[in-house]
């Protein structure tokens, strides 16, 4: 096997680096991966200038003009682009910034000084460049990241599950949160994490984003039936499912 190994570069934008940590935590599987690819940029290790790579893995969302320009430049050098983690795929928690006008948010955070004059509304990276592969989640689910990398290396598409987390949750035979009087976003959230949180008795918080055709109205009905206030419901949906793409999915529902 003398074929050169594909070069994979990791770059990060506005985020917490938790997803890269998940990759670093893959242990033995990461070593396996390192056998078939060359990791040429893992943030601190190398400078981005002059590096060449085939696969670009982007973590974090775009939150400033500088981010936007930098992403475009980095992306132009890559053959394949992978969005890794909720910030990159759907905007993630950074979307909370978009709930109010930028000026207002800045004032609340920084007061009278403005250390980030070029800040813009949060964008998922596919609002700036074309994305070939999505690894959803906050943080990403390690085994899914590996699955996606296999697909990247084989040149075949990775299909993000279009069914909700409940599918995995039931197959894992968890007692449903609703039985315990808890409120779970599993029914409207894309699967692929093997129902990570419900497996540990917690509820799904929707970090992987809404399924493409969420029964958001029916879900709100249910939450209300279980005694949650409208405000509480919106909060639940807002943490991760506030990006432009996510919002559009609700619109679809209400028109029907």
């Amino acid at each position, binding site marked *: 096997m003398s074929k050169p190994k594909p070069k994979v570069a990791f770059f990060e934008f506005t985020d917490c680096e938790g997803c890269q940590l998940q990759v670093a935590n893959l242990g033995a*599987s990461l070593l396996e991966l390192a056998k078939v690819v060359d990791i040429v940029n893992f943030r601190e290790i190398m400078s981005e200038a002059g590096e060449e790579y085939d696969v670009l893995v982007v973590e974090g969302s775009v939150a400033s003009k500088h981010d936007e320009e930098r992403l475009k430049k980095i992306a132009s050098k890559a053959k394949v682009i992978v969005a890794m983690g909720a910030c990159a795929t759907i905007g993630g928690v950074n979307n909370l910034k978009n709930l109010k006008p930028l000026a207002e948010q800045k004032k609340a955070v920084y007061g009278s000084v403005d250390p980030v004059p070029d800040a813009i509304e949060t964008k998922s990276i596919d609002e700036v460049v074309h994305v070939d592969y999505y690894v959803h989640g906050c943080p990403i689910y390690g085994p899914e990241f590996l699955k996606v990398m*296999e697909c990247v290396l084989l040149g075949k598409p990775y299909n993000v599950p*279009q069914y909700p987390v*409940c599918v995995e949750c*039931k197959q894992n035979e968890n007692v449903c949160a609703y039985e315990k009087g808890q409120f779970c976003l599993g029914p409207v959230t894309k699967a692929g994490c093997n129902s990570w949180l419900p497996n540990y008795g917690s509820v799904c918080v929707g970090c992987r984003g809404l399924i*493409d055709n969420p*029964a958001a109205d029916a*879900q709100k009905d249910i939450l209300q039936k279980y005694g949650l206030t409208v405000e509480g419901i919106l909060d639940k949906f807002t943490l991760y499912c506030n990006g432009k793409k996510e919002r559009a999915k609700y619109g679809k529902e209400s028109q029907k």
Partner: protein
Amino acid sequence: MKYAIINRMDMGRWFDSLKDRGKIYGPKKKESAYVFRPIQEFEEMSLKYIPTILPPKKYYFPQKEFLLKFKINPFSTGKAIREFEEFILFGVHTCDIAGIQCMDVVFNEKPADPNYLNRKEKMTIIGLECMDYCDKYASCAAVGTHVYKGGYDIMLTDLGDEYAIHINSEKGDKLVTGKKYIREMNAKDKEKLNKAFEEKLKKFNNEFDGDMERIDKAFEKGFFSPVWKDLGARCVGCTNCTAVCPTCYCFDVVDEVSLNLNDGDRYRVWNYCQMDDFAKVSTGEDFRAGRDARQRHRYYRKFKYSVQKYNKYFCTGCGRCTRTCMAKISLVETINQLLSGKEAK
């Protein structure tokens, strides 16, 4: 010996005697619910239980089942599972046994499914008769699965101090013969069993507002009933109703290649008609785009299509779909609304 008697006190040691026949799975408590799990000691089991979250189906049609192994270069394929293991399902309710009978019909249809048949061959079923309703969600009397009608090796009926044993196969016979503490049933025992059965029947009544003949008719003319629109609006599309059903047998086939990019596995995973893209085809059309059409499909698959195809209802009345539905969509209510022919609420 076709009927036998075992003292309640001896159940533990009988259970121990089964251990060398294979792994034993039985009902166990999990938080507020029950699940089938591997059982080491008789006392671990909760024999008084309502239907488990997942039916015992997971042991003969697993959620994720490896079908074959392959190599890309040089290309080769091989069996994923060389040897299937003997196992015993202990304490299976009659509704779930009816579920197994449904799967038998499906997977025996040509081309027969070798994985299913291999597992089935290694399976021993020890049933447990319900002497009263598990809970208010059951509809087993309507479809007649509250009484035993074959499909098991041994059936246990709780008679208080003792259990009646019905032996229904050679496999079952081997599990009880030669045990000093298990005796043949005498006339007095038989009378006791019959009496208990009569008492039981008094508790079970058709849960639907009409007999199955009327239900057949209702499904015949109910395709455009407003009932389905109503379900479609309330259903959140979680798929749980199909995930927990003992007679749902749809699966998807997936190939996964390992990181060396040469060795891979092909496996199948459960797949449900309640999934959004289940009936979507490659050209983009979706034959059941709405949740109303998908819910209707689920009901027709249980009460009409299977009757046309296999002459069998594919609802065992276990009530799992109703129990699991967070939108509180109830099978009994839906059928009754369909029967009433009236506008749904």
